[in-house]
């Protein structure tokens, strides 16, 4: 059976980052196990599970209230004349027709709309930065089909101008993934979409790491064309299974070692392997699998592989055929992160339908609209509108308030951060977008974007017009 639901996995990972308690984690410093098992720095995979810790600090903020706007809360609810109160970077109150508390600044939301900050669960910003020259091609470690040892965050260029254009599109949280050339492509990372000098300054505190895996055409084409495995889909599957067998053995070795030294006996520590550290953390439920997979039949195979080795898949990405197995995905609690209108660019994308996400929703499965594209990420609301229209054309009754979850609450769920963001609910991070009109309109533009209660973009305030270093002195220095 699968280990746990997405939320539980997410919480486990959050706990990990705060204080290691899981089986793969380090013995506590100063404890008696520590004395027996102390390893030189860098040789114990559990000693520093967060080797590149987040240094994220919210931008300067103060308490405020938005009053009088229409709101989609991300919980399926639509509000008129909504009031949202933000204190200390968190949402304090959300309700209809409430008076703003005295003594804090008020944003007049009349005639405008608010939504949770948008979340893109599939982006390559920073790893395929603009300009898209060879020197910026940092998303696929094309030297081996199995590269769990690489981490996308080590490729992220925080000066990618695309982070800023995405923020203007309302995106406050973004998952940066390695590419899909490899069966196992490496760790993904979830970022706060704030301007930062370092990637550490963007890392979402406590968000679980993710693992990129890929089905289908890409791995078999890339490696098959080099005359090496995999060259077929069955070769792909053999590759995943071999990797998980190795990970299971590695996990057992470390568990045995810890048990031995835990009894006060001496033991030779296993050699540390970066890739197997990552896969082992997946098997412990600490890292969430994000699986690129287009075809329904391949997704069904991947579900069985996950069951064979005891991990769970958080989301299938692209997954243009998810509607064919909506029941299976609902039963296994796996999200589908996809587009509405993209299709046919390759054979495995031929059977895409615009109503994929609405059909999943109708079947009780989790649907996410994502970009995988530095242009589309600027208009996730538009893509959600396309999907919504297609759902209605298919005869499904879906409200705008429900559909906004495809770009807010559902991606938060798939990334294990729904307890932190993704909806407008008291206690959550105050990630809020103020739109000049209904975000399901093609004419909608963001007016203000708040991240952790801090203004990060304001169309009218010259102090909040961020520019990448790259843009300085260029013709693009003005509004993009």
């Amino acid at each position, binding site marked *: 059976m699968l280990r746990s639901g997405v939320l539980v996995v997410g919480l486990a990972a959050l706990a990990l980052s705060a204080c290691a308690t899981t089986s793969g984690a380090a013995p506590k410093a100063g404890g008696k196990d520590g004395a027996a098992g102390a390893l030189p720095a860098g040789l114990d995979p559990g000693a520093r599970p967060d080797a590149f810790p987040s240094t994220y600090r919210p931008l300067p903020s103060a308490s405020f209230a938005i009053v009088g706007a229409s709101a989609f809360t991300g919980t399926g609810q639509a509000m008129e004349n909504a009031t949202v109160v933000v204190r200390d970077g968190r949402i304090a109150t959300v309700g209809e027709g409430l008076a703003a508390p005295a003594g804090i600044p008020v944003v007049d939301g009349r005639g405008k709309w608010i939504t949770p900050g948008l979340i893109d669960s599939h982006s390559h910003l920073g790893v395929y930065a603009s300009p898209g020259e060879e020197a910026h*091609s940092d998303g696929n470690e094309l030297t081996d089909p199995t590269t769990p040892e690489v981490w996308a965050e080590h490729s992220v260029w925080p000066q990618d101008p695309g982070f800023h254009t995405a923020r203007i599109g309302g995106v406050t949280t973004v998952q940066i993934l390695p590419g899909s050339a490899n069966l196992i492509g490496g760790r993904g990372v979830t970022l706060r979409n704030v301007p930062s000098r370092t990637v550490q300054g963007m890392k979402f505190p406590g968000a679980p790491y993710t693992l990129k895996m890929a089905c289908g055409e890409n791995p078999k084409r890339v490696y098959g064309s080099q005359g090496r495995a995999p060259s077929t889909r069955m070769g792909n599957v053999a590759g995943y299974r071999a990797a998980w067998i190795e990970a299971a053995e590695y996990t057992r070795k470390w568990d045995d070692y810890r048990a031995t030294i835990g009894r006060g006996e001496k033991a030779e520590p296993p050699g540390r392997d970066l890739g197997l550290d990552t896969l082992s953390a997946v098997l412990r439920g600490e890292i969430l699998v994000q699986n690129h997979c287009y075809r329904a039949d391949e997704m069904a195979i991947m579900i069985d592989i996950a069951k064979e080795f005891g991990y769970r898949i958080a989301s299938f990405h692209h997954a243009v055929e998810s509607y064919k197995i909506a029941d299976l995905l609902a039963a296994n609690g796996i999200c589908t992160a996809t587009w509405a209108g993209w299709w046919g660019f390759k054979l495995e994308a031929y059977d895409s339908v615009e109503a994929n996400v609405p059909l999943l929703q109708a079947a009780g499965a989790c649907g996410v609209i994502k970009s995988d594209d530095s242009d589309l990420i600027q208009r996730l609301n538009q893509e959600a509108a396309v999907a919504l229209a297609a759902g209605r054309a298919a005869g499904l009754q879906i409200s705008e308030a429900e559909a906004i979850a495809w770009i807010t609450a559902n991606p938060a769920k798939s990334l294990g951060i729904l307890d932190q963001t993704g909806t407008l609910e008291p206690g959550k991070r105050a990630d809020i977008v103020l739109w000049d009109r209904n975000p399901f309109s093609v004419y909608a533009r963001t007016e203000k974007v708040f991240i952790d209660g801090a203004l990060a973009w304001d169309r009218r305030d010259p102090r909040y017009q961020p520019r990448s270093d790259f843009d300085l002195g260029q013709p693009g220095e003005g509004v993009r």
Partner: protein
Amino acid sequence: MRRQLAPLAALLTLGAALPAMAETVAITGARILTAGPAGTLEQGVVVIRDGRIVSVGRGAPPAGARVIDASGAVVTPGLFATGSLLGAVEIGALGDDLSVDNPQIGAAFDLTEGLDPASTLIPVARTGGLTSAVVLPQPAGGGYAAHEHDGEVSGRRLTAGGGHGPRPNTLFAGQGAVIRLNGSEDMVVRSGVGVMVAFGKAGARAAGGARGAQVAALKAVFADVRAYAANRRAWEQGSYRELGLSKADLEALVPLVQGRTPLIARVHRAADIRAVLKLAREEKLKLILEGAEEGWMAAAEIARAGVPVILNPITNRPDSFEILGATLENAARLNAAGVTLAFTGPEGAAHRAREIRYGAGTAVAWGLPWDAALAAVTVNPARMFGVGDRTGSLEPGKDADLVIWSGDPFEPLSTPRAVYIRGQAQDLTTRQTELRDRYTDLGAPLPPAYRHR
């Protein structure tokens, strides 16, 4: 969740009944956006007979006409996908029929011979309200290539500037065509609508490495073509000097150097745009710019030259060093300067041609007047490519290419209720709606394989 009866069933059924020849059809009650001299008509009436528009106006439908009540709907001309690959591609990664790298066949390449009316992309495009496309040849060596959406697995990315392929063998990509999206053998409306040439980085590569070499090479070619046109007999008899092109290419370029057929210049950077304007001025060429991401930086010059521009309104990132000035306000700024615009869509406006109307809406959100956006997807491309006398606006005598929309045609939540091409209601079923419909009931006793029309 229970499926409702399709709310548009009534209209679709109506649409499926093709008007018989000589039948008069009147579409009534709609807000009619003509994109022509009649402007916008509230509660207007469009009368169609024999595939043509008879009248656009107000008042009662003619006696005996079959009336289509479109009350509350919006009627527009059928939309154009300009700069499209439609009809010439099925699966992006499997290639298209628009790119030739043959030193004997460059300008002479006529893509209409390779178009497939049975392409499944054509019905899909119609569901975006598109009734016409301007299909353009694609420069060899990567002037356009399908983007790797899902992993950039090639290890490199193709850019708007024109790829990294080997040096192409020709300066000319070939000739474009206007097609109607009725999916039938009479799909070609007009061929030879312009000769495509990639400038900037891609053009430099074709000429051996540097931009200036391309200008020199083109000038030499144009001189040869003029010499050929003036000395055909001597050339045929072998008593004229050798010319640098095949006979087919020389013939194809005669209308270009005579200013009868436009040069369609794929060009991005402002400096390159100015260089192309200068070349066209010196060679007295008719010119259309395509791409023009930095067009706003040369807007006054483009307007002064009377040169129209094809652009994708959503391009705003510095995705290459040729488009550092890209902005969502490009369309608005060019329009304000008086430049005529036509819109293309993402990735060759083929699989994603449906998004052209959203791009038009995005241009409006970023400052383009609404009517200018409608013109950029209807009457402007029709005029730019020589079919303005028969389509692109709702005017008496033109082909009845039109769309009945549930609302504002640029809004994703609006959908086409009916699409007419030459007066014939088009089937809005697509391979995609068939796939959707066979998988809506996953609990049915027999597998989906048994469910099809």
